[in-house]
């Protein structure tokens, strides 16, 4: 498991990351959300042992990033937000280089390369030059590079930036597959819908502070003190709003102007059933009743102010 403990990074008078803590289990896909300059990349670079923390630490399956960085490096695959690909090398040579520096035994190297190429759907490009690949393919090659040594933790910094919708969908599927394989995956992004689909845990960061962290549903629920319903009526919305306001557990009921009433409700599902029954019994022409769910974007906008370091 990965345990991040009070990780902090200062650059002179500037605090880039301020005491971040969270923990992840194998199979977790963690979405790291924040504006540009919020501290996502700094945190990821600290976990990947590329940047020394000012204080705090992180442990990956018992190996400390400060005391034992080499051991940690053997267990991680880091994909930065730029490709850093070598010119004039073929796809297999590129992977062979990384397999060699990750000390994959030479007898197994070609088999491993074939496997990761198959996983990332690049087998047909094995003998192509790296610079001849499309952006999406280069991104997949970078991911293949991260996988040659079968890491336990994958750190993907803005993996989908600059990709077309199809390449993005393929990448999402690939990351989800890696999660199913039991790897811990940390994905940073500021494109929220992309993360909400496949991350089971998210962390929202702003100005180096982790504002919220946990399963997506839990974060949304924690942020919403009331449930929001919308009652759709054929007519009489004003009268219905007044009627609903007088009901128990209703904090606010307002007509929306589109033949609906918006209700802020604190009651249980049983109370909710009573409310619907009373509305129908009182003769209001009710044609729909649905709960409005807040999404990750709502949570993000509610939590953050847009300030950056």
């Amino acid at each position, binding site marked *: 498991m990965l345990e991040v403990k009070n990780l902090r990074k*200062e*650059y*002179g*008078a*500037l605090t880039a990351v301020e005491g971040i803590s969270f923990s992840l289990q194998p199979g977790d896909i963690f979405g790291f959300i924040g504006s540009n300059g919020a501290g996502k990349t700094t945190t990821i*670079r600290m976990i*990947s*042992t*590329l*940047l*020394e923390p000012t204080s705090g630490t992180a442990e990956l399956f018992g190996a400390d990033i*400060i005391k034992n*960085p*080499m051991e940690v*490096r*053997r267990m*991680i695959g*880091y994909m*930065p937000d*730029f490709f*850093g*690909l*070598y*010119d*004039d*090398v073929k796809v297999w*040579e590129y992977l*062979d*280089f*990384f397999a*060699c*520096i*990750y*000390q994959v035994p030479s007898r197994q190297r070609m088999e491993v390369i074939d496997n990761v190429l198959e996983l990332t759907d690049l087998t047909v490009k094995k003998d192509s030059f790296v610079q001849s690949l499309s952006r999406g393919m280069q991104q997949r090659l970078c991911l293949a*590079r991260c996988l040659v040594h079968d890491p336990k933790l994958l750190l993907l910094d803005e993996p989908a930036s600059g990709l077309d919708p199809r390449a993005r969908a393929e990448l999402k599927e690939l990351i989800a597959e890696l999660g199913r394989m039991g790897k811990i995956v940390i994905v940073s992004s500021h494109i929220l819908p992309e993360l909400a689909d496949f991350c089971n845990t998210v962390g929202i960061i702003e*100005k180096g502070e982790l504002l919220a962290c946990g399963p997506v549903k839990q974060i949304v629920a924690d942020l919403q003190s009331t449930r929001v319903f919308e009652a759709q009526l054929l007519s009489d919305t004003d009268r219905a709003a007044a009627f609903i306001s007088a009901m128990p557990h209703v904090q606010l009921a307002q007509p929306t102007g589109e033949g609906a009433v918006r209700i802020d409700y604190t009651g249980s599902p049983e109370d909710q059933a009573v409310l619907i029954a009373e509305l129908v019994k009182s003769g209001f022409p009710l044609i729909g009743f649905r709960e409005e769910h807040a999404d990750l974007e709502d949570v993000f906008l509610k939590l953050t102010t847009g*300030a950056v370091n």
Partner: protein
Amino acid sequence: MTTTVSEWLGENFRTYFSNATSTRDFRVQMRGSKSVVFFTLYLGLLITLAYITYSNSNSGSKSIIEAQQSLKQFYDLLLGALGFIVSVVPPVMAASSVIAEKQRHSFDLVFSAPVTAKYYLVGKLISSFRYTWMLLVLALPVTAACVVLGGASWADVLGSYFLLSVIGVLISSIALGATIVSTKASQAVVLAIGVSIGYNILCGVAAAAAVFIPHGLSGATGTGTNEMSAIALLSPFLVGHSAMTYTEWYGMHVPNLLIVTGLAALISRLMLVCAGAQIMPYSKKLAANVRIHCLLYAVGIAAYVAAVGVNSIRTSSTLPGSGIAVGSDWNKVGIVTASFIFALSLLSPISCVSLLGENRLRPNGSFQFRRAFDGTPAGHLPFFLLLTVCVFLGVAGSAMRWGGLHSPDSNYWSLMVYACCLWVFGWGLSRWTSSFSRTLQQAQGLSFAAVLCLVALPLPIITMMAEPGATTHPSPWDLYILRPLGLYEENVGALPLAYGLVLCLFGLFVAGVGNRRLARAAETMKEARSRAA
């Protein structure tokens, strides 16, 4: 224990014989037909030159002696050309290859893997030198022709090739250490060529000096035909003359090839550790390694220079030089050593600090002895004071052991204190100039300019004010900060101490002012940030 040894062996095998960095670079270098065409042209040129030389030396009008001389000249010319190749090609290739990685942003990919600085940099050295070695090997048949035809012996040829290889690695590693801070490939190439030229000039001067000064720790002057100072062998342009020479060491003939290989290994190691400390994440250990190397090398160089230099000082002294310690001897040794420390103190701008941007050199504290080896500004002053003491101790030990001097006197120790105070002064000035500057480079530039102004600017003014030839006190020269270094013929006693004390107090005062200004600036910046937030 067995595991540790096998791990160490495995790591070294991977580094030197199965290095992924060198394999990848070599694949790229050999890709396509460019290399084949280049090597063919190169070989063709060498063969043509050899044929023309052989035809000339074999012409009917020449005697056998003239023909031999002509072949010997061709051999020397060929080795000179190989010396040029070794001076230019590997340093440029190594430097540009590392900077290309920096520009490509591929450092993060490599260093997020379990790769050590040694593995990576040795790989870069091997890949750049393997290419050069191919050029040397291609020239071997032509050089071998000189053996067959009578210009040189096999031992000369093989010794020269070995020496060229060692020097190539040495120049490459120096270029790598010096160019690692570059941001552009063109900048790195220019810097690498500059370093190579500087190295060759320095070696040329050292080789020339080696002819005139005694060498070896026995102080011999070189009577044997093949006896030569090992320093001369560091020049790639002299390998043809010096490959099979030796240094006499207590009656033993030590082959200079061995000494040069040892020296090259030590210097290359230092330069690679320096380069590693610049590019590696978590580089505190490497920074400490660099500093420990510097201390050890400083002691070694100081001891060697003292061993060969004290005799010169003593023979030129007007005082009795019978081996009995006299004040003037230690005074002169001290002045020469303090002058060396002063030359080093021009580096004091590296103690500058910056408030902006990422600064690897944190913390900025004033004097923390425990930071002496981690490369932070807080440890600069203690490290340089330690370096000064080490150099003085190295010189003293060597002068006593091999120079025949007795224990150092008060002149020597007071000059050591003065040298330490020079550092405090330089450091204080750096702190003060840092408080006026927004960036680190600006602070360093300002600090260097300030040191130069204080040293160079007063010279013409004092020269005009002082009476020519006057040696009495007081004199306008008494106001000059390097005054104790000019008291060559005097028994200086406590005078350097007084100068040192004044310099030290002044340095501490300006450092205090600078530190207060820096603290205020940091506070203001923090407040501005919180207001903006």
